[in-house]
């Protein structure tokens, strides 16, 4: 009920803003702060998700957990919008502008897809504090970049895969062949080779850009994983968002193992059926990044620029849920220590 009223209010404010803008003949920037927080009012936070949105069991959900936690602790007024498949840059841009104009003084763009549009939008709304997850491509005085050292976490699950593999063949399935996902692949391969230099890593990307369905197509994931399992691979690392579900399904059917990504996928309710084949997960704590960001804004300590969440920060990690890596935990933690103290430099690019 309150949410509904909020929406109407926002719409009214929007219409008013539009009228003013039309009268003044000025551009639609500038008056965004009019709905901003007064004393004691709730912080208004807008989220622009990437394709899949809340409920993707992966990346977006991780961001959602962060916002949920922040809401519980600080009591926020939240508006969540979601990207559509194949939408244009202008629509992404419009989404961020609508949030800014709707009085949301804190706007989080979840996913590097928003980099270009945010770069255009942010200068027009200097009163709004933006966060961009997963990308350093947009910078500005009111932009905080939340990025993760995915290669480090991937390195650790690569080590786990190498230690657990009996066939010395492991697989990597990437959702879409983008530089970001290549970071996962490079780290994973380095981890595998660290332990077993002769082990084979089979690599497969589900789709090529601009086809981004690879992040959200379990059927494709299942097919690709089946191919790998048939070729003798016994553990597959699925860095493929929602498509990972298919990888786990294939693993379950063939009695093999999979490695999850972004969230601790063993504990996700949506994956309860296949959780017994999840060896571990490369946890990317987007929730922590999001929570930290909101918390900093709340405390009036907004910091622009890049913040890297790496192993040292606890921004990435491997998951122990399910207990399948308990026996090699010592080795994994040893590698973790080496990475943190710089003994091992994990490559991030091919």
């Amino acid at each position, binding site marked *: 009920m309150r949410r509904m009223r909020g929406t109407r209010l926002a719409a009214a404010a929007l219409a008013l803003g539009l009228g003013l803008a039309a009268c003044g003949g000025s551009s639609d920037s500038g008056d965004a702060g009019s709905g901003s927080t007064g004393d004691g009012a709730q912080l208004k936070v807008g989220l622009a998700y990437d394709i899949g949105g809340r409920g993707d069991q992966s990346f977006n959900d991780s961001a959602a957990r962060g916002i949920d936690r922040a809401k519980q602790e600080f009591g926020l007024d939240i508006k969540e919008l979601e990207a559509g498949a194949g939408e244009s840059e202008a629509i992404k841009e419009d989404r961020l502008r*609508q949030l800014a104009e709707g009085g949301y003084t804190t706007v989080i763009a979840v996913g590097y897809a928003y980099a270009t549009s945010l770069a255009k939008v942010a200068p027009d709304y200097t009163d709004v504090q933006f966060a961009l997850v997963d990308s350093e491509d947009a910078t500005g005085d009111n932009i905080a970049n939340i990025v993760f050292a995915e290669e480090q976490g991937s390195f650790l699950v690569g080590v786990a895969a190498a230690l657990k593999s009996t066939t010395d063949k492991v697989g990597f399935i990437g959702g879409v062949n983008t530089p970001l996902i290549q970071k996962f692949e490079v780290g994973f391969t380095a981890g595998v080779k660290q332990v077993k230099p002769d082990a084979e890593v089979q690599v497969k990307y589900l789709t090529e850009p601009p086809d981004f369905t690879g992040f959200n197509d379990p059927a494709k994931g299942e097919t690709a994983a089946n191919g790998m399992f048939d070729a003798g691979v016994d553990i597959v690392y699925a860095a493929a968002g929602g498509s990972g579900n298919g990888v786990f399904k294939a693993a379950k059917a063939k009695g093999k193992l999979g490695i999850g990504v972004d969230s601790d996928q063993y504990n996700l309710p949506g994956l309860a059926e296949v959780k017994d084949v999840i060896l571990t997960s490369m946890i990317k704590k987007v929730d922590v990044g999001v929570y930290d960001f909101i918390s900093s804004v709340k405390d009036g300590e907004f910091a622009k620029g890049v913040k890297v969440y790496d192993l040292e920060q606890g921004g990435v990690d491997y998951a122990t849920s399910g207990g399948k890596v308990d026996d090699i935990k010592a080795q994994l933690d040893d590698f973790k220590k080496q990475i943190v103290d710089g003994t091992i430099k994990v490559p991030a690019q091919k």
Partner: protein
Amino acid sequence: MRRFAPRAVLLGLAAPVGALVFAVLVCAVVLAATGHSLFDTIDAMVTAAQRPRTFVNSLNSATQYYLAAIAVAIGFRMKLFNIGVDGQYRLAAMLSAALAGATWMEGLPSVLRITMTIVAAMLVGAAWAGVAALLKVTRGISEVISTIMLNAIATYLVSYLLNPARLAEERPGSNNIGTRPITEGGQVGGIPVSGSSSDLFGLVFLAAAVGFAYWFVLSRTRFGFELKATGLSESAAVASGISVKKMVLLSMLLSGAVAGLVGLPQLLGSSHEYSLDFPPGIGFIGIAVALLGRNHPIGMALAAVLWGLLDNSANALDLAGVPREIVGIMQGVIVLSVVIAYELVRRYRVRTEQREVGKALGSTRDPAADGPKDDNREEASA
């Protein structure tokens, strides 16, 4: 072109308007079933459309949809289904972006640079469509199959070429990868619109020119006549001396050339580079817009604007708490119902025309009044 007749215009409008009304009804049912208010939805959409930025964005989307629709329509008029507009424009946009962004181009005058970019895009589009045309003409392979396959190949070709070792630019630390940005001289400036943060694409005029050329070629030239005749009856075309193979080849090349233009308004007007986030899928939207606009140059323009408005109002719906997917449902229902509506209207038109010919010639008559000297021998059977 047929003589202007109010009824013909009414009949022409009946199908799309009817389909639109039907689509709104279906969406109302869907909204009611999911517990959303129809009026809030319409309110949100209308409000969105009135916002200058959304309107400009819609026109910008429509510019590209329109070009794609014309590319599709050229094939449709020949009963050729160029499903490959999507791959054609992406490949063309990528390669022409690489050309336009190249360092050596920077010394050239702006007009020459832009012209070269446009010509290159058309050539690439035509070449890619030409592959399907050649396969059809020489081997009889359905253009539907081959263009679908070529779409997939184009995707992989683009991602192969979009690599720092090839046509893309090295961008350390970035999650995106793209061609070298086109510098100012190679860009086409937008038209500022008061109250909007986005400019109207300068190449909206290119789309209008292409639309005019489409109309002119089809209705005024021999080539257009032969193209339409081939589409309506291949056997009659052959008997009247039209080389169907030549027409297939030419119309596919033309379709591909126009398809090559689809990405340019975005490329030269906004993105200035071809990168991973370059909008895909416009070719398929073009199919829907061509169907909705009935291959008519003005019809497709209206359809493209409608489509753009729907796409760009999705955010406003999301903000108003209405699932954005309602837009997709609406678009799907519109296309589906418009196809049915056109067929109904076509049948109605054929029937009324036959009736009118009959009436004008008096073949329907009271046999009692039928004198033997009446020299009218219209056939009476239907």
